């Protein structure tokens, strides 16, 4: 909570990252590189570098590499750069490759940055302060509460079914047959859980109307408001500039 980025209002964080990402869609790889470095720096401030780089290396980089190779060899035309067997890399292909990969990386960097720095609880509370129904914010928050719980239950069910003799590591057909007995109990028990959850929420006054008090208060300073306006203006300016270039 100590660093300036974390102190920002969550909505401001979303606005800034969204603006940076949208602007990035109009620019190439150099913008992405800068964006990536800034994102890395911001994550470093909050000690999230490991998570940031980890997800990027596992979830984004392989996709980017595959995309790059495919675009390079199977799209575009122009001067031939490399010609080997069925693979023919052209200048147009290289341009396409750079264009689309930097777009992928820009989108991914934006999403990754916001998922790393955003504090879900503060975000939900901020939305409530802005008049969003607590039921709606509960939906967002509870997703991340239910997920690990359900993953654990899925593991338990799979183990239980294995103990009952369901094959889970034979050939594809056998494994496919194991899928339904693995997931049907999970789905049914989750749906039964919906009712229990609804009752306990009701018992805790979730559906009462009237003002609710929260221990958490999220600041929305003048700086936040200014930054949000700036973010919107920046996006509009870039779009306007591009449209002007295009019509000229």
């Amino acid at each position: 909570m100590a660093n300036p980025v974390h102190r920002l209002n969550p909505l401001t964080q979303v606005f800034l990252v969204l603006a940076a990402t949208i602007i990035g869609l109009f620019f190439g790889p150099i913008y992405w590189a800068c964006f990536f470095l800034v994102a890395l720096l911001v994550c470093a401030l909050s000690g999230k570098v490991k998570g940031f780089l980890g997800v990027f290396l596992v979830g984004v980089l392989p996709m980017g590499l595959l995309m790059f190779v495919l675009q390079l060899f199977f799209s575009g035309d122009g001067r031939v750069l490399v010609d080997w067997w069925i693979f023919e890399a052209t200048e147009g292909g290289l341009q396409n490759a750079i264009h689309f990969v930097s777009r992928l990386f820009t989108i991914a960097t934006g999403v990754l940055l916001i998922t790393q720095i955003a504090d879900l609880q503060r975000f939900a509370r901020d939305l409530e302060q802005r008049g969003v129904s607590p039921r709606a914010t509960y939906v967002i928050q509870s997703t991340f509460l239910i997920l690990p719980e359900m993953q654990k239950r899925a593991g338990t069910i799979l183990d239980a079914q294995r103990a009952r003799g369901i094959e889970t590591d034979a050939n594809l057909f056998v494994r496919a047959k194991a899928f339904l007995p693995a997931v049907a109990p999970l789905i049914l028990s989750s749906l039964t859980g919906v009712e229990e959850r609804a009752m306990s929420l009701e018992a805790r006054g979730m559906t009462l109307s009237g003002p609710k008090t929260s221990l958490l208060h999220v600041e929305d300073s003048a700086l936040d408001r200014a930054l949000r306006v700036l973010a919107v203006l920046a996006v509009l300016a870039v779009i306007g500039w591009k449209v002007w270039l295009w019509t000229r």
Partner: protein
Amino acid sequence: MATAKREFSMMSLLLIPIGIALNFVLGSVAKALNLPIFLDSVGTVLAAILGGPIVGGITGLLGVLSISAFAPAAVVWSLQAGVIGIVVGLLARFGWFRGSRVILSTLIIVGLSVLLSAIISIAVFGGFDGYGISVIRAALIEAGFNMPTAVVITSAVAELIDKSLSVAIPMLVIGGMSDRFLNKFPNGPHLRTLRPQAGTVGTGPVAPQPATPVVSDSPLDQSAVDETDTYGSYGSYDEPTSKS
């Protein structure tokens, strides 16, 4: 309007996180079993069938957004998932998941997914979206197809398998749910005839229902029962839902 209010009962709101978590977990079970399919929209379809179009749409959209925390590039598919959720919810509301019409509904969903994923894939990533399937696309292009055709062919095959299963699994589960339980969800009354002769199987002759309307067992949401179409729904007492 009653349906709008029911769509936001506590029960249906809670379908959203459950649906999202199911998308995620079923995807990982498919991965644990080394199945060559995504299966990451089962929860969306289930939530949409039970909860209606709004719940379905939010489940799809939020589901993909939350997956993006682990696979950031997935964020571009959130629109597709949201639309699929809305359409499934609408189809369910108009009874298109009953009887043999399920097949038609599945085809509509498959067609829509192919269309949307092709548009997104080409518009955002120029066709090669970085999943394994793009390699097959490259091969098709090398064989002389143009990009849109290659994208549509590959997505059609993938979506046909994925989305048929994503509809079939929720249908099997809902088929095993009791009417009592189904009624608690906004779309429940539209789904009950989905089961083969509910009320006549297993329980013998059904006692004629008294003229009083059936009241929901749920203390939460009395509006969850639409009085006009709930009579005779208590025929079946086999409760497979509570055992797993």
